[in-house]
């Protein structure tokens, strides 16, 4: 293809498109290019200012957010009302995936640290896809399950490690 024609037909370089970005995520790694294009119309791109609340602890949660640009701080409130930082997420990370499949409350708060662009995928869209395009919904759910089970596995191991550390720790420390 001559540069002239590629100029006319390709408005955006491939790497800048939302579909390409989604394809780089482990969540959607199984998807074909066509399905990624479909996914592009399914997700919601939202622009956030610096320091804007994405959601707070206790909000009704209905889906996951993927960080495309910017950074997001995940925090939780302790029993004494102090804010504990759990993580700072950057481009390619996602959060809130536990509420995608079943309605639940947010267990942590998310706030942007700088100007950010987040990509939302919500339960309503997932349910629509299950009806409209079951094959694609399967891949979506499989990807989600894989990531969730990896995280569960890691959490289980972490819990075991903590338990072991606690049992081997000297009694005077508690």
């Amino acid at each position, binding site marked *: 293809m001559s540069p002239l024609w590629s100029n006319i037909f390709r408005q955006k370089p491939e790497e800048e498109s939302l579909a390409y970005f989604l394809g780089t995520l482990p969540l959607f790694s199984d998807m074909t290019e066509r399905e990624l294009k479909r996914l592009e119309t399914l997700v*919601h791109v939202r622009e956030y200012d610096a320091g804007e609340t*994405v959601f707070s602890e206790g909000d*009704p*949660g*209905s889906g996951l957010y993927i960080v495309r640009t910017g950074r997001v701080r995940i925090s939780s409130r302790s029993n004494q009302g102090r804010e504990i930082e759990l993580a700072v997420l950057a481009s390619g990370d996602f959060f809130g995936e536990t509420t995608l499949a079943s309605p639940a409350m947010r267990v942590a708060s998310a706030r942007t640290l700088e100007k950010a662009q987040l990509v939302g995928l*919500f*339960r*309503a869209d997932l349910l629509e896809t299950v*009806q409209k395009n*079951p094959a694609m919904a399967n891949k979506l759910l499989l990807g989600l399950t894989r990531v969730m089970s990896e995280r569960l596995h890691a959490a289980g191991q972490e819990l075991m490690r903590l338990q072991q550390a606690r049992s081997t720790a000297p009694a005077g420390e508690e």
Partner: protein
Amino acid sequence: MPEQLSLTRTQLLLIFLVLTASIASGLALFTSASRITELLHVATTGIVLPVLLSLVLAFLLEPLVRRFERGPFNRTASIFLVSLLTAVLLYLAGRWLSPHWLAMWGSLRTDLPRYLARGIELLNQFEVRLNEYFPFVSGLDLPGRGRVLAEHLFNEMLSHTTGSALRLGSLMLLVPLFTFFFLRDGQKIIRFSVGLAPNRYYEMAHDLSYLISRQLSHFVRGRILEAAIVGIVVGFGLSFTDIRYAPLLGLFAGVTNLVPYLGPIVGMIPGILIALVDLGMGGQFWWILATYLLIGQVILDNFILIPILISHVSNLHPLWVIIAIIMGGKLYGVLGMIIGVPVASIIKIIIIEIRYYRRTFALPLASQDSELTG
């Protein structure tokens, strides 16, 4: 000194000008506000019917489009296919029915005065009987009222048939067009309007809009299907007797069945009247009454259709039904009376969904709060 004076003078002039301008614009705003609402009303009257019809059609055709979409077609192609199928089906039905309908319509227009006169006569007899048993109920003038109502109805029908060709033409043009766009871009329109919500409330708005639209499509599909089945069964049941206009009466019963409580009663009045005038109080009359009441309403509607098709969410208190009918009638005439109750049900569904949503998520929050304080 003169400089200062001229300054105050310009200031005074300015103040005067500003004051007059504000008063004038205030007056203009006041008069134009009522004018604008009036204009809005006039402008929307032509649009309400096609938009409503196409919304209903879009709701009805959506499952079919989805089925096609699961196959090798994309959305636009499946909408085209479904529209084509519907158009062909409607055309065939129209060709098959139109000679019957035209003949029926013609004879009905000559028969109607006869039926109305007979109906008024019956009312007269009824009043005489009523006065016999309850002499204190006098001055009701039932026949007079009936005559006024009947004349009004007849006039409306006659005046509507002259203009109805034009209206039907515009409907046949607008409804398919609107339906196509509602089917193709409905999701996008909802997405766009929900997308206008601020980031903080976006997620909730999105979730709610999904829940509400799901409930609404259930409701609309259920109601239409219910009315269609009741209409067909009543028309079929009536055609066993010698009554004339059975298909028309079935259609009327189906349309009025959209309105709960009052609709079925209004729907059976013409059938009963025609039966009384043409057939008298024989066995056929009782069969017709049984078709309307026992088969149409009690068995079919209450025992079979409503439990299956209509969820209890959309049940309205009879008081609200009557209020909705009156308000709808005031706004859009006979059409408003029919659509008033469904619209009220839709509003109720929206309110209930929002409340349910809030309560589902508020409950654990409250317990957590008590845990925190405790």
